[in-house]
């Protein structure tokens, strides 16, 4: 019970801090001090106090996008374990639900973009749904590997397996999966090299260009939702890489949270040292991620 409360408190409060850490890392690389780590929270609170402006073209669909951007990752977060050994909700087959919740959110984010009737947002929606087609199989190949290692179909046991047996019996596969998932994480959260979250007005944008017409609380929901998504998808990676199986819950939670912040630093480093890819190169990188995870699976088929 206590663990569930802690789980909820962490998922509600920590995600925007990851964005703060990414910002600080990038600032350090640029030789600046950077905004405080709490800055994303200040931004969100400011947005929630602002008034909303809606396009005359839009319908109710326009508002479903922001709502699902928050509700879907929150629901998905209930299915993955953070520091504890089990997620608040866990049943056989929850991994499929986990993946499809993000798809539900994607459906309505893209539909909300088309609802504005703007050419830019249509462009962003088309790219978002197209690139997801390549990211999704990569995610599932990785889940197959974890399912094969753990012999179960629930995320809670699957994500505990790497540090009980997985890294010893199937280390090579896990390395490949982690590499593939890291690419998926960057793509799904529209980070460099796929997308640049700092520039709204370039024709090469994917996710950011879909939310041009959202304002005030709706925009706040979307920004909060994208930090949640980064956190929840990052959990898959961190639970695979960082051991959280110690007997003391405190140690586990500290290990998990420091892993998450380390992940934010790594993302920040990637954003500082790599330029954004040309649009036509993006499918190639995603197919590579897919193949990496596929090789991880092939190693396990014998």
């Amino acid at each position, binding site marked *: 019970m206590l663990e569930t409360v802690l789980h909820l408190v962490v998922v509600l409060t920590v995600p925007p801090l990851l964005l703060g850490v990414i910002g600080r890392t990038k600032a350090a690389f640029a030789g600046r001090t950077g905004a405080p780590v709490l800055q994303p929270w200040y931004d969100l609170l400011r947005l929630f106090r602002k008034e*909303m402006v*809606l396009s005359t073209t839009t319908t*109710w669909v326009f508002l479903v996008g922001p709502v699902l951007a928050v509700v879907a990752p929150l629901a998905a977060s209930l299915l993955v374990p953070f520091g504890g050994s089990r997620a608040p909700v866990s049943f056989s087959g929850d991994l499929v639900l986990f993946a499809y919740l993000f798809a539900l959110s994607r459906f309505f984010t893209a539909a909300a973009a088309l609802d504005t*009737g703007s050419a830019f947002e249509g462009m962003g929606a*088309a790219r978002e749904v197209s690139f997801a087609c390549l990211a999704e199989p990569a995610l599932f190949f990785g889940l*197959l590997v974890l399912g094969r290692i753990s012999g179960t179909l629930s995320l809670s046991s699957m994500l505990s397996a790497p540090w009980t047996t997985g890294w010893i019996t199937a280390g090579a596969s896990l390395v490949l999966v982690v590499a593939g998932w890291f690419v998926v994480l960057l793509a799904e959260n529209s980070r460099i090299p796929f997308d640049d979250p700092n520039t709204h007005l370039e024709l090469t944008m994917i996710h950011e260009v879909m939310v041009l017409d959202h304002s*005030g609380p709706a925009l706040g929901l979307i920004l909060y939702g994208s930090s949640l998504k980064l956190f929840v998808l990052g959990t898959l990676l961190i639970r695979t890489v960082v051991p959280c199986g110690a007997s003391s819950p405190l140690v586990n939670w500290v290990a998990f949270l420091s892993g998450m912040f380390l992940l934010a630093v790594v993302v920040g480093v990637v954003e500082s040292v790599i330029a954004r890819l040309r649009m036509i190169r993006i499918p190639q990188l995603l197919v590579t991620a897919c193949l990496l995870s596929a090789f991880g699976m092939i190693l396990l*088929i014998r």
Partner: protein
Amino acid sequence: MSTSLVLAAAVLAALSGLPSLARRPRPAGPSPESWLMAAAALVGLTGAALAFLPGQRGAVEVPWGIAGGPFLASVDPLSALFLGPLFVVSAAGAFFGDVYWAESLHPSWRRLRVFYGILTASLVLVFAARNLLLFLGAWEVMALAAFFLISTEWNDGKARRAGLLYLVTTHVGTLCLFGLLALIYGATGSFVLGPLPAGLAASGTGKAIFWLAVAAFGLKAGLMPLHFWLPGAHAAAPSHVSALMSGVLIKTGIYGLVRIQSLFPDPPVAWGEGILVLGVVSGVLGVAFALGQHDLKRLLAYHSVENIGIIAIGLGLGLVGRSTGNPAWMVLGFGGGLLHVVNHGLFKSLLFLGSGAVVRASGTREMDRMGGLLRVLPVSGACFAVGAVAISGLPPLNGFVSEWFLYLGLLDGVGKRAASAWPWGALAVPALALIGSLALACFVKAFGIVFLGEPRGAGPRVTDEPAWMWAPMAALAALCFAIGLAPMLVTPFLDPAIAVAAAAPAARPALPRLAAVASLRPLSIFLVGLAVVLASSLLAVRRLARGAKRDGTWSCGYAAPGPTMQYTSSSFADWTVGLFRWALLPVTPANRLERPFAKPFRFASHVDDAVLHRLLIPVFRAGAELAALGRRVQHGQIQLYLFYVALTIVVLLFQV
């Protein structure tokens, strides 16, 4: 009792078109024919439900003058599972058709009503027949009734060609069925459906029976690459007929496959794996072709190919389970596949009815001329959105549940077998994920381009939304929600049907119940919670937005944005069509904007059906040219024909 009720429903449905022959056109609104269909549906649904009670399953057997056994019909749980969606969809479609196919505007309304009833009745008989000759007869009536419905708009060249292509294709399938029947008669000495002898599956006859069944029923179901007749036919038929065809008629192919494989006591593993691979190909390429379409109904038709593929993945898994004696795979494979049959029947007919509402309002099927229809069709648009989310397999709707069963079964094959993973499962799981995300892309496109944004063309032609048009859709949407949120409502109906499909012999232990293999309760609680949270937070945000200022869409500072600047369906799908260029072979004329001051020109790109336009039509055209050589001796001059006769006689005289 059950079978008699179902047959009574068939008679009612067959007669439902008769009043139309004796009356004048009426204004839009429920017609006597539709009430007759509703009565047939009520009787039939009662009968189908009774089939799940063990005591009510008596067969109807009447001796008749046709050789090959008595008139034998019986409704077992497998038949009943296919009959359920049939009755729901045919009644919903009939009421929709009253508004959609307004009698005062369409002179062909009588023909449509008569054949709609006959088609429904023949479908009932296909599912209930237990004598193969009766099955064949019902199958043929179904094929012909569907032909007359597809070619309702006979004066339209496209509809005519689609109808003729359908007629030829369905008879190729019938030819395969003849072979199938002959082989089964040879093996058993009877036309009555019953188990085939053990060991037959390993022989050449057994293999021929199975693969002939795959060809015959695959043609009807639209399994890639046998799908080529389907997009044109579904696009040409009136929308409520498309709903019945796509929702139920093509499932007769799936029914046939399930039934035939259940007759074999010992199917080899290769059969299941073959069906699984066919399903994966059908699923991935079906949705890829759908993405390339800009005709709304052709897009929906290609999604039928995709969903048949998903169903086939389930059948393949179930068959492999039968061959290897794995009860979990049988239950999850057949269960997922059969539930997807029901689900697809509901959401695809909902989407086709939605497309009918769209066509009625906009006067075109071209998505690139639509836009903003949600303001004209608020209820139909919302129902279409429900169907779109459901067909993309997203929670909390019914499409997710059936795909979830398939995932569970396939993942079980990869994960839980200790010695070696089942490589086909490792192929099918990511393929299913790919199918899901492509379907999502396609339905964001379909819903977004048609219903959202601003009108791209002249704008809507008809702006009313009669209640009798949206009520059938709303009913189907409610069913999608019910199965999605509470799957345990349908699993008691699935379990006995799975037992029939798996033909579990008494020697083996009984199959586990679906609810015991899949943890439905936590899933259902989670999804209901999700739906409640979603609905309440949406209400909260809408309240927040009520007083919001309204202004035009911000177009990044561009001063004069117009509706023609919006993304179109073709531009939306450009990336994904590019990814599948190797299969779709899109036709894009070279860009002629090369020099400055270029002259105005037209640019049009489209995706043809690869099998039909790249393979079948060239091959048959070449065959026709070859045959034309032989026509030289035929020129209609009677003297020359007499000369041929004389020549032949002379040659014969010298020969003999």
